[in-house]
Each structure stands twice: as structure tokens, then as C-alpha cells.
């Protein structure tokens, strides 16, 4: 949609503004208004106001991400290109911090716990992922929500913010690197040694990603995932 381009162009006008003062600022604002009006008038699409994802950075587009399969449906899902999308904010300490802030401020902690060890919602640190533990799957879980009560955070949160939350979750060590989607599907843990090419589930060097992934911690026996439909609830009994 070329409204994107309009917005980007629009940016260029707006970037003048902060250095402007007084008169010139007013002029810039009027210019902006004009640009906005054009933008509004020039866009023929009317979709009722809430569904269009709108990444404003050239990061992996949300439309691609939402093609990530929900899980091993009928055992046949392939690791599509989309599942291998790396998180643009992986290993970015500042983004991880911002992601943690958002995790608390967006009430994620209320369900998944302060420290993400679970509560009303599942534990996000234990290597067990109902809907996939690669960054793209986690993004997707946040972006479009999940059927057991996880709200969809699109369009409330911009995609960059969702990626930052994913970066925080990755930093907790329970997720899978982007290229290990197949491994997740087959129950292999990151770090497992897979004999020969029998399974080929954790093929070394299959990652086409140059983005370094956080090293996920090997699964520990005591952190065996709760396979209950509902995670333990350290709540208050209502």
C-alpha cells in the first residue's frame, strides 16, 4: 500500500520541525497538516479502522509473520521461511530493557508473572511452547493472541514494541533460535545432540540468519513443562 510511502515522505517534512522555532514551527505544522490531509484524502481503502498492521520500520512485516503456523497441526507443518525470521532486536540490551518495561506496563506480568515464570498464563522461561518457541512464533502469539485468553496486541502495540517484548522473552533463555522451528516441533531441546542425520531436526548451520541468537539454556529435568492446559496459578483463589 503506497500510503506507507506517503507516510515516510511525510516523515521528511516532519523532521524539520524540532529544530524550528516560533514562526517556522507553525509553518511546519501547517505543512504537516496539509500532508496529513492529503494522506487521508488520498487513501481509498476503508477498512473500519483496526485491522491493518502497519510496520513503520522495514522490519519483518507482520503479514509475513502471521503466516507462521500455529503449531504442529496434523504433524505436517513445515518450517516456512517466516518461521526463520530473526528478531531485529535480539541481543540488543536496550531493547531487552524496553521489552521488560513493556512486559510489566502492558499487564503481561499480571498473567505470566513477574519474572515470566507463569501464573494465569504459561511460564515463558521453561522451554515449553504451546504455540512455538522461535521468535517469529512468539511474536505471532502476541500479535494475534491465542485461543485460551491471550489477547491480540495488534493494533494496540506497534510491531517494534512487540519485537522488543519478544527480545525480553528470548533473554530469559526458554525460547528457541529462529532456525530451530523443526526442533521445537519434534520436541528436541536447543542444545540436544541429534544423532546423525536421522532426524535432521537440529541441523547445524542451517540458519540463514546472520543475526546472532541468544543461546537458549538446555532444558533441565526439574523444569519439565506443565502439560496441563492451564499453568499453575499463583493467584488468589477466585
Amino acid at each position, binding site marked *: 500500500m503506497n500510503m506507507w510511502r506517503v507516510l515516510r515522505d511525510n*516523515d521528511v517534512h*516532519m523532521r524539520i520541525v524540532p529544530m524550528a522555532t516560533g514562526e517556522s514551527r507553525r509553518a511546519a*505544522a501547517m505543512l504537516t497538516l496539509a500532508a496529513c490531509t492529503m494522506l487521508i484524502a488520498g487513501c481509498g481503502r476503508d477498512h473500519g479502522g483496526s485491522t491493518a498492521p502497519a510496520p513503520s520500520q522495514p522490519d519483518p512485516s507482520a503479514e509475513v509473520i502471521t503466516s507462521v503456523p500455529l503449531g504442529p497441526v496434523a504433524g505436517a507443518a513445515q518450517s516456512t521461511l517466516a518461521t526463520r525470521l530473526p528478531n531485529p532486536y535480539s541481543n540488543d540490551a536496550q531493547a531487552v530493557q524496553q521489552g521488560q518495561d513493556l512486559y510489566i506496563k502492558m499487564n503481561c506480568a499480571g498473567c505470566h508473572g513477574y519474572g515470566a515464570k507463569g501464573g494465569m498464563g504459561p511460564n515463558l522461561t521453561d522451554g515449553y511452547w504451546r504455540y512455538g518457541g522461535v521468535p517469529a512464533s512468539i511474536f505471532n502469539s502476541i500479535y494475534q493472541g491465542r485461543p485460551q485468553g491471550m489477547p491480540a496486541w495488534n493494533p494496540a502495540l506497534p510491531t517494534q514494541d512487540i519485537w522488543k517484548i519478544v527480545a525480553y522473552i528470548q533473554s530469559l533463555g526458554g525460547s528457541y533460535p529462529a532456525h530451530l522451528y523443526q526442533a521445537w516441533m519434534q520436541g528436541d531441546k536447543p542444545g540436544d545432540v541429534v544423532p546423525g542425520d536421522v532426524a535432521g531436526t537440529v541441523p547445524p548451520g542451517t540458519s540463514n540468519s546472520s543475526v546472532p541468537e541468544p543461546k537458549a539454556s538446555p532444558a533441565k529435568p526439574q523444569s519439565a513443562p506443565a502439560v496441563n492446559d492451564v499453568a499453575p496459578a499463583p493467584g488468589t483463589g477466585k
Partner: protein
Amino acid sequence: MSYLRTYGPAGDPGTRLGWGLGIVSIIVMAVITLLLLGAILRRRARQGDPRALAVQRDEGGMAWLYIGVGVSAVVVVGCVIWTMFTVAAIAMPARTDLTVQVTGAQWWWSVRYQNDDPSRIFTAANEIHIPVGRPVRIELLSHDVIHSFWIPRLGGKMDVIPGQTNVTWLQADKPGVYRGQCGEYCGAQHAHMSMYVIADMPQDYLNWTRNQLQDAVAPDSMATRNGQQAFLAHCAVCHAVRGTPAGGILGPDLTHLMSRRTIAAGMLPNTPGNLAAWVADSQALKPGSQMPALALSGPDLSAVMTYLQTLR
């Protein structure tokens, strides 16, 4: 922003003191300069005597010392006493008529109007309305880093420190709009962290309060209903609009957004054009601000704008 003239008892004694000490300093400097010049001239007058040692002790002259120290002591002690009286004069008055809790955040001010009757407590942003001629207690909190609360025409600075409640007060004796500014460097947009204190005549203040206490007007047309939906979808996790499910506390409460003079913490006049520009891409206007680039579609932006303009 000038602090050379103030308009209230929280600032006036300090301003008087500032002027006074300034004038005293100028007089002292002038006197000393004159004396120094005199001394220099007198020294020159004696240069004719070839037997004179390079340094020699004058007879007498101790009186100059006594007089000098005496006069200085009187002036200094006088200034100290004056300063102490001034500090006492701008101390928190025994009774204040209103308490406002101001929370500094990067980079804006949240303003909560306290009241003994909880149902008269409400939250606004970046504008502090006060009744003219009444002392107002200001409680200062920080959401993130150290800021400083400063309304130059109404009084001195008070630091805003995370994890601590600092208290100051102000009073405006003349109705009007007084600009304030964060007085402690607090990050990239420190310069764009202003606010306005608006001193209203008592009746205006009551009317303003009454309006602020109202819930937001319910949408009454298809366009405003769509606008509200777009607002709830895109904006409500950070912004609150009372009377709707929008209950975010991360950004300014927008229940009566259109009653404010400026947006983005005093950065831009609150005009439809500026508001649209801000919603469309706040990061271009105020890079680094917590308001993310929403990248709304044209129709969504138009819908949100339609709704925002109903928030009077």
C-alpha cells in the same frame, strides 16, 4: 519565563531578595571600586620620594580596617537576616486550599488534583489550573529520572526525584498563564518538557473543575463512534479517557484533551493540524518520546482525529 518579575507570594520574597541582593552587591562593588581607585591614586601621589622603600608601613589607617569590616559585617549580617526572613516567607504556608500531585515523566507532566472527597479527584496533563490568590500545595513525584519543577514567574525550582515525594507550593496573585519548564536535564527532550500554570478567577476555576470532572462525551454520530473504536484499538493501552474502556496510565489522560492549550508538554499549540501531525508521527516531532510511531492508516488517523476533537 522571566524570573525578574513574579506574581505570587511563593515567588515575590525571593524575587525581592534577588533584586535586593543584586542592588546591594552592585553598591558594594561600586564602593569597593571607588576605594580601590582612591588607594591607587594616593599611592601614585607619593611616588616622588626617591628614598622611599618599596614597601613601607603607613602610620594610622587602622580606622579604615575597622570601618571596612564594620560596614561589611552590617551589610552581610543584614543580607543573612533578610535571606532567612525570605526563606521563612516562602516556606509552606500553614494552610493550602488545594493539593496538586505533579508527576514528572520523560517528557511530560501528569497532574492529579487531590481532594478530600475522592470523587473530586481527577487527572490531567501538562497544565495546572489554580484559583487565583490561593496557596496551592504541589506534591512532586517522578516516574523515571530526576526532573525539576520550575514556574519561574511563581517561584523557585524544586527537584522531582524518583522514589521520593517533594513538596512545594505556589500562588498566583494575578490571573494569567505562567509558563513552566523542567529545570533539570532529564534526557533528549528535556527542552520540550514544559507546562503551563493557569491562574483562573475563582468562578472560572470552578467551571473548569466541573468540566474536568465530567466523563468524556459519548460519541453521538457514526463518525465519532468509529473514531472511538479506532482510538480504543490503537491508543487505549497507554491513554485514559474517562467514561470509556480506555484506561492506560502511561501517557497523558485525554478525557478533556481539547481543553488544553498545548500538546506534547507545551511543545505545540493544540491545533487540529499539530494534533494530527503528532498522532501521525510523534517521533518525527519529538524523537525518543515514549509515544511510539503508530503508523496509523489514513482512515484510522482521520477517525482518531475526529474522536479526539470531541474530548472537550
